[in-house]
């Protein structure tokens, strides 16, 4: 389980997280939704220690990741995999090298074993015969799938997805969502997905948290969020221009 308590984070004068509390249950898919620029990616980066809060607590399985030694943080990070918004594939490496990289660095597997694991991970995400290509030779959807293969290749306990389907066409979008559901069913990891995809995300997630004005406005099952009476959540789901959410 990941828990955040009274997390505050500001960048200069801009307050992004304002005393945020959230518990992310183990083994479930939790979606974090909310308007653009509300700090969803910032929140996600706090979960893995890429950003440190100005104050508050972040714990992963009961262990704090705030102000700990780098070696300690790295030990906790070994539980994680992450798919970045822009995928963040290493652009000087081929697809194969990208997926093999965590295995080469974090395990003592032989070359053959690594090759087998990489090809199997790529096949799991529906990719074949692209191992020798470089990231800039791939389409957006293929990059996301390679990123997903890299994130799951070490079988992490927790995977963070930062807008995994942004900028993709509806078919690829559905395929990625299905892929997340399938890999989750297969490996049973804890998933945290930052997403704008309304209403598709309600089919993927088991829990949904709405982030608004630096706090979790409501946390519940997809049905509870869909049927919420909160005006900001209703406006966000309906995409209406009128309501408490103002366009920046």
């Amino acid at each position: 389980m990941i828990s955040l308590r009274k997390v505050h984070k500001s960048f200069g004068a801009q307050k992004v997280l304002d005393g945020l509390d959230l518990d992310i249950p183990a083994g479930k898919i939790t979606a974090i939704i909310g308007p653009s620029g509300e700090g969803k990616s910032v929140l996600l980066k706090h979960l893995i220690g890429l950003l440190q809060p100005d104050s508050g607590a972040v714990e992963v399985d009961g262990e704090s990741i705030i102000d700990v030694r780098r070696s300690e943080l790295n030990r906790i990070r070994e539980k994680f995999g992450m798919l970045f918004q822009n995928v963040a594939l290493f652009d000087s490496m081929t697809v194969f090298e990208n997926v093999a990289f965590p295995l080469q660095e974090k395990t003592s597997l032989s070359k053959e074993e690594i090759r087998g694991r990489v090809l199997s991970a790529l096949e799991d995400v529906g990719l074949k015969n692209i191992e020798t290509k470089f990231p800039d030779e791939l389409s957006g959807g293929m990059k996301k799938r390679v990123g997903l293969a890299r994130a799951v290749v070490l079988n992490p306990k927790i995977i963070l997805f930062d807008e995994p389907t942004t900028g993709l066409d509806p078919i690829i979008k559905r395929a990625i969502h299905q892929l997340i559901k399938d890999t989750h069913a297969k490996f049973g990891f804890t998933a945290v997905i930052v997403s704008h995809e309304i209403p598709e995300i309600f089919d993927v997630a088991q829990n949904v948290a709405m982030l608004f004005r630096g706090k979790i406005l409501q946390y519940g099952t997809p049905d509870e969020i869909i049927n919420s009476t909160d005006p900001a959540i209703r406006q966000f789901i309906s995409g209406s221009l009128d309501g408490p959410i103002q366009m920046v």
Partner: protein
Amino acid sequence: MVQALGHTTIKMVREMGRLGWFMLYSLYMIVRRPGSLVHVLKQIRFIGTKSLFVIVLTAGFTGMVLGLQGYYTLTKFGSEGMLGAAVALSLIRELGPVLAALMVTGRAGSAITAEIGIMRITEQIDALETMALDPFKYLVTPKFIAAMISLPLLCAIFDVIGIYGGWLVGVKLLGVNPGAYFYEMEKAVVWRDVYSGIMKSFSFGVIIAWIGCYKGYYAGHGAEGVSKATTESVVLTSVIILVWDYFLTSVLL
């Protein structure tokens, strides 16, 4: 006005602290986890081997112009036989280390900043961190080690080519006695001169890797952030090399 001055001072002190920390952590990582040999060799190829052409070209013309200038100055005193010594001492003690370092700064220092800066803005460095891997081990220490090895070697090549550039102009074009050129050189150059040149170029290698990696690692946002970081990297590295050269010369002389 006072507030703005205070802000600028705090910002500068913070930046200097971060720069110092970056250097110390890089040196610590070189000792603790120097990175794989393959990464270091790749960087030696990039910083060292690929700079060879520009180093040879610069060294040749620097030696030639030293031969020309030196000849016309020394003939005024009737001591053109000292040309070899003048060219060699200028190159080995000063021009070799400094010019080689400035050329590598322009060619490789800027590329180091751009490469790490692009990795920063495309979240590739964050990706390494999320894999519980220290980015310094992959991006910074191999470049430090490669620059520390490459710069003294490039400087040595610069010196040799430069001396032959001076010989070409002095001996072949202007008629200085070839025996005198090399004899006076051998008599004038002592081990301390060579040692100080090597020490200088070694420390310039550290400066190039330090500032190049630092500016890339903390590059600002977007393409503009990387381009600004690259420019700042080249300017700051060049300035630090020249200032450090003065202090080092005053100590080593």
